[in-house]
């Protein structure tokens, strides 16, 4: 198996982009990443695109072909393009498939991208499209919503470990603090614990400021074999570990409501491949679709003891400058959550940090970073570990 490096990256702006289409977004990200890597289209061997629900959000399937076509890679070059879907983990999985294809030796230069255009439908329709990531037949039919499922995780976490609403809110406050320094972030405003607690209740105990927003956006990275990465860039970022795991589709079937076993196992697999542990990681982008999801994630990945995620967040240990900075990009909460793109955006944040290009949100001396991308309420998790050094 060959080692793999990221040699080019590009995010579009994340936000409500009424004037731009699905294809506009993904072409901007793809072309930007190609430019960043200093390659040309002829060099590309294949592409993988994460997209959760083009069918429901823009009534478009056959996403792989569409993107190859409008990127100018279909008509003359006929570059193979594959869509990857795992709900909100689609982006992370597309990246993983790209890594597989380079590592295997089948392909040299690969684009891994992710895209979601969520504001072409009313927000009620967007919510029901997202709800399809849960079990439609046994959760959705009873009136479950995604905030509702995570609210049940939050309620249990509070009951078992004494986690408070203030501790949950502190994750959102910290992510908005980081997001203000990220040029692509959907929200660049600071918020306070009081404003989170005073925002409207969506699914008790989660307020609307505990929830990530609906977002349009696309992200793309270029992968290459580590052996030739220096031909393209002075700052390749190396993939040291990748792990993926599945769990039950429905929350009610999980071993423990407050632990995402898929995160634990995907993390373990990535740590083993990288021959590292949580103590080696300088910063991490976790899947904070809701504040409670960030709390569970830092516990499940080994950055806090089970039950203490709320406390360490409230105490500032996960802020930039803290023991383990979490979601320097602003996370899903402040940077935005175009579901198919998020997993790729997380990797780009780590690349920018490890290159030392993260500006005011730079983590000093960052050498090793992790990403954690979750599908649904935890039925899929994918974790990657990246390093500045080979």
């Amino acid at each position, binding site marked *: 198996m060959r080692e793999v490096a990221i040699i080019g990256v590009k995010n579009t702006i994340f936000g409500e982009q009424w004037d731009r289409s699905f294809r506009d977004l993904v072409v901007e990200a793809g072309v930007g990443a190609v430019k960043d890597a200093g390659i040309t289209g002829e060099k590309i061997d294949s592409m993988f695109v994460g997209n959760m629900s083009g069918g429901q959000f823009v009534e478009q399937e056959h996403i792989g072909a569409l993107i190859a076509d409008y990127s100018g890679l279909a008509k003359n070059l006929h570059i193979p393009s594959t869509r990857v879907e795992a709900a909100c983990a689609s982006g992370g999985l597309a990246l993983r498939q790209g890594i597989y294809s380079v590592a295997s030796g089948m392909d040299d230069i690969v684009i891994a991208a992710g895209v979601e255009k969520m504001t072409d439908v009313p927000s009620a329709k967007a919510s029901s499209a997202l709800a399809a990531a849960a079990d439609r*037949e046994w959760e959705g039919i*009873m009136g479950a919503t995604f905030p509702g499922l995570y609210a049940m995780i939050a309620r249990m976490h509070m009951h078992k470990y004494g986690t408070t609403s203030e501790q949950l809110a502190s994750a959102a406050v910290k992510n908005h603090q980081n997001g203000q320094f990220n040029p692509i972030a959907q929200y660049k405003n600071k918020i306070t614990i009081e404003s989170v607690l005073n925002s409207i209740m969506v699914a*008790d105990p989660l307020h609307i400021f505990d929830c990530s927003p609906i977002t349009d956006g696309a992200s793309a990275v270029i992968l290459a074999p580590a052996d030739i990465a220096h031909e393209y860039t002075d700052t390749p970022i190396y993939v040291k570990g990748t792990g993926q795991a599945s769990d039950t589709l429905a929350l009610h079937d999980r071993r423990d409501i407050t632990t995402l076993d898929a995160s634990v196992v995907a993390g373990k697999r990535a740590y083993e491949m990288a021959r590292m542990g949580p103590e080696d990681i300088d910063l991490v982008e976790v899947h904070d679709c809701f504040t409670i999801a960030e709390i569970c994630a830092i516990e499940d990945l080994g950055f806090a003891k089970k039950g203490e995620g709320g406390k360490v967040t409230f105490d500032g240990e996960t802020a930039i400058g803290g023991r383990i900075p979490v979601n320097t990009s602003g996370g899903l909460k402040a940077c935005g959550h175009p579901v198919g793109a998020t997993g790729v955006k997380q990797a780009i944040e780590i690349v920018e940090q490890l290159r030392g290009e993260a500006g005011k949100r730079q983590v000093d001396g960052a050498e090793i970073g992790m990403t954690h991308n979750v599908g649904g309420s935890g039925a899929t998790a994918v974790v990657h570990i990246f390093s500045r050094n080979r």
Partner: protein
Amino acid sequence: MSVPRFWRKQIARYNLVGTHCKQCGEYFYPPRNMCPSCRREGEIEDFKFSGQGEVVTYTVIHAAAEGFEGQTPYVLAIVQLEEGPRLTTQIVGDAKDMSIGMKVSPVFRKLGQSGDRGMIYYGTKFVPA
């Protein structure tokens, strides 16, 4: 949800009929045809649950799922049946009376309907026991 898709699980939804693996003894609701522990070695049979259970966790939904707009606020919960399996359901009653560990019993209720003239979906909700 389409009529055939709902109809084919009607008995399971109306009467809390799930499955049981005779090989390892585990019970499943919602029903499963493949036991995750025994897989192909498993022996699956239908099983009707008593319906007695307790609340594992719950939430009060204020921003409704599509089709549930008229019901807010409503209580969504995970209930553990006395035979072991857990399911997602609604608890009928006042949100302020809910608590983790509360004993509940099943009730037959309307879940929703497709549009103004479409089929009405019935199923099992729970009430404090």
